[in-house]
């Protein structure tokens, strides 16, 4: 078999997963895209292992290890997603902006208490109470 077939298929699958990671909004769909990328790497490992006829079969061993690590990763990732969903009420990666550098609409509740009086611009004053109320509703 020509080596370009599995290599090109793996490259295209990896880029499909890359698009999914960048474009999806739901966290679980992002995890699915990460699985696609990991599988593309696995296909590359198996194809090159079969091509090189390695006596140690490092490619296939690494593929098995990658599958096990992916299983562990999906377990931990889903636990984190469920914890975030329980405390925030959403699993939308675009709304989880607690550590974002911009201070619009989703600042920490302590910061809004301190800074809502004077330092905030008028545009932020319109959006800050909504974000604060949403946060309080999610944490209650």
């Amino acid at each position, binding site marked *: 078999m020509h080596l370009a077939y599995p290599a090109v298929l793996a490259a295209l699958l990896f880029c499909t997963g890359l698009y999914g990671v960048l*474009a999806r909004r739901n966290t*679980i*769909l992002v*995890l699915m895209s990460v699985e696609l990328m990991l599988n593309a790497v696995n296909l590359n490992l198996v194809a090159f292992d079969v091509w090189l006829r390695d006596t140690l079969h490092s490619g296939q061993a690494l593929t098995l290890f990658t599958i096990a*690590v992916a299983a562990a990763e999906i377990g931990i990732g889903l636990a984190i997603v469920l914890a975030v969903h329980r405390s925030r009420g959403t699993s939308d990666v675009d709304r989880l902006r607690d550590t974002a550098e911009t201070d619009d609409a989703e600042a920490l509740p302590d910061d809004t208490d301190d800074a809502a009086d004077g330092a905030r611009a008028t545009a932020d004053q319109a959006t800050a109470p909504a974000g604060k109320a949403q946060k309080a509703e999610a944490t209650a």
Partner: protein
Amino acid sequence: MNLAAAAGHPGFLSPTGVEIAFLLVGVATLGAAVVTVTTKQLVHAALWLVVALGGLAVEYLLLTAEFIAWVQVLIYVGSIVVLLLFGLMLTRAPIGRSPDADSGNRWVALGVAAASAAALVWVVVDAFRATWIDLDGPAQGSTDVTGAFLFRHWVLPFEALSVLLLAALVGAIVLSRKNTESTQGTQGTQGTKDAAARRTATGDDPATGDDDATREDKS
């Protein structure tokens, strides 16, 4: 093509049966993957992921890596997709079309993915233009061979992997456990004051305290 055949390699234009099968299954796998990352129905994305991962298992079989193919079917199709479906269910994913499944930067993502795909495919085809995999002979990934190399050369990473799986198990339990103290701490002061007042009222005088509590609930 004659030169390639003379050099001991099959040509581009004479694909073998294995290559045709690989190509067809690869097209199906890639199509399922594309549907997985573009569909607006979240549960359908998980089910199309099953098709993509199953197609990859068939590709492993065509590459004579049998053990990895069955491990792929067992772990990916059997457990990871089920975990993802449970995750979708527990996060109350909407059944049916959800219009906000894709982020706003979809076109930027499409550009990045298309650029990287073009670069990767160009480099890979250019590098492995004249390379063929020899699939004849004994299977290189049968259970016999896999067991031999795994427990002859890779025993220590294998055992370290079991420690990693244990750590992942403990971590998942710790992360998904309901931490009652911290949730009480993060509640608003108003709610805790009400609860404390209610508790002291019931503790001081049970009969009237119950009346107070029911009155508060009604009001």
